[in-house]
């Protein structure tokens, strides 16, 4: 391989590491937050329902790119102007673009997946929870042991799709200076004036990551539904 190939591979691998860590961190946080968001969306109390609806509306109604800009440039600038944060020992953390990308992408995923959970819980037949109530189970128990396992099976395909969208969303983190796959491709592009090789290399890496995530989700789907076939 020539010098350019080695250089490109080196940068792409460095970017790949950040992409994977960003994706895993956001997928874990976002999916964990999604269930509470989904429950809050369906809550009978307006103190839970209204904030959750506004949260979902804002994150689902605006482009991810704009959300990242607001977080990094907007909120980042405000945080920098607060002296108690600016001169705190935690400041290096607040300066990192990675943190802003992590928070924004996690919340974005939580909003979308929360809606998926809401739909899935509504999709579980009513008779299931009625049967649980007739057996005298407390409502938390009905939710945990009867409704949620069935809702998970309904939600899983959509959750898989949403996690692929999260992977694709991490590419936008490059636009707020996070050095991940897309950022690596852009760097090589700017330094060598070669356009196609870095972009194709990054595309291949994203494609392989997507294949891994998709097969992971279809494995889970098979495991969860095998008993019911």
């Amino acid at each position, binding site marked *: 391989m020539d010098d350019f190939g080695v250089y490109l591979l080196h940068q792409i691998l460095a970017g790949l590491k950040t992409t994977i860590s960003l994706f895993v961190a956001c997928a874990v946080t976002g999916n964990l937050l999604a269930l509470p968001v989904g429950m809050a969306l369906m809550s009978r109390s307006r103190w839970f329902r209204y904030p959750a609806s506004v949260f979902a509306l804002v994150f689902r109604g605006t482009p991810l790119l*704009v959300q990242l800009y607001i977080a990094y440039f907007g909120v980042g600038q405000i945080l920098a102007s607060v002296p108690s944060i600016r001169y705190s020992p935690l400041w290096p953390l607040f300066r990192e673009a990675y943190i802003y990308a992590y928070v924004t992408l996690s919340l974005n995923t939580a909003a979308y997946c929360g809606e998926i959970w809401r739909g899935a819980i509504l999709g579980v037949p009513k008779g299931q929870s009625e049967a649980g109530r007739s057996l005298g189970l407390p409502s938390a128990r009905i939710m945990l042991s009867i409704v949620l396992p069935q809702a998970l099976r309904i939600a899983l395909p959509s959750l898989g799709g949403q996690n692929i969208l999260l992977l694709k969303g991490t590419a936008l983190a490059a636009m707020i200076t996070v050095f991940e796959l897309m950022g690596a*491709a852009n760097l090589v592009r700017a330094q060598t004036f070669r356009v196609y090789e870095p972009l194709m290399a990054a595309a291949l890496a994203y494609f392989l990551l997507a294949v891994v995530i998709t097969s992971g989700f279809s494995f889970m789907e098979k495991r969860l539904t095998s008993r019911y076939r």
Partner: protein
Amino acid sequence: MDLTFSWLSLLSFGDQGWGDELLRGACLSLAIAACAYIIGLLLGLVGAVAKLSGNKVAVVLASAYTTIIRSIPDILIIFLVYYTATDAFRSLMSHSGFSSEFQLNGFVAAAFSLGIVQGGYSTEVLRGAIIAVASGQSEAASALGLTRRQIFFLIILPQMFPLALPGLGNLWLVVLKESSLVSLIGFTELVLVGKMAAGASRHYLLFYASVGAIFLVMSGISAALINLIEAKTYRAWRHG
């Protein structure tokens, strides 16, 4: 109060504020989204028909198209399409003897690259809708002696429309938000205007939040319109 006043003047129309620029940017965003949506629907229709045609080559090509679009970040595809299209156009122009300094029109390039991404999503929606039209319909039509083209345009296409409507509405909401990505290939739509305004005035939060709010309003109005159309079509479908 001073701050509020300066914010208001920054967002006002006229020389001092960026209000008119933002409004123009929003209109361009809508125009780009609409063009990309139409290009995407045409590509999606071709892709859906190819997927259902049974022709092996067509099926493989269409499946490769949707798989690539679904698993590679949209911004990467937009970059790739944009550079390929401009390079191809430029070499075509220099070969045919026109000036080599030719630049592809920004609007066309943006709408085209966004439309190709959108086509991948549209393929799935339209394919689902075509399948959902009962197979007895096309069987009855072929029993009446209609050609395959007639069956598609006269029987299937009109019936799949109400079935595809929820998916089509979703696609519009997606493309409206995705139109923000063409700011990254240098097309001055809403997000790039917001970026320029934020950079010039150094009020980042104000301008990016305004851009977000404008998008929120646009998607809110779109969602309301889509609900209206769906309700109307549903009623016509039931009573018709």
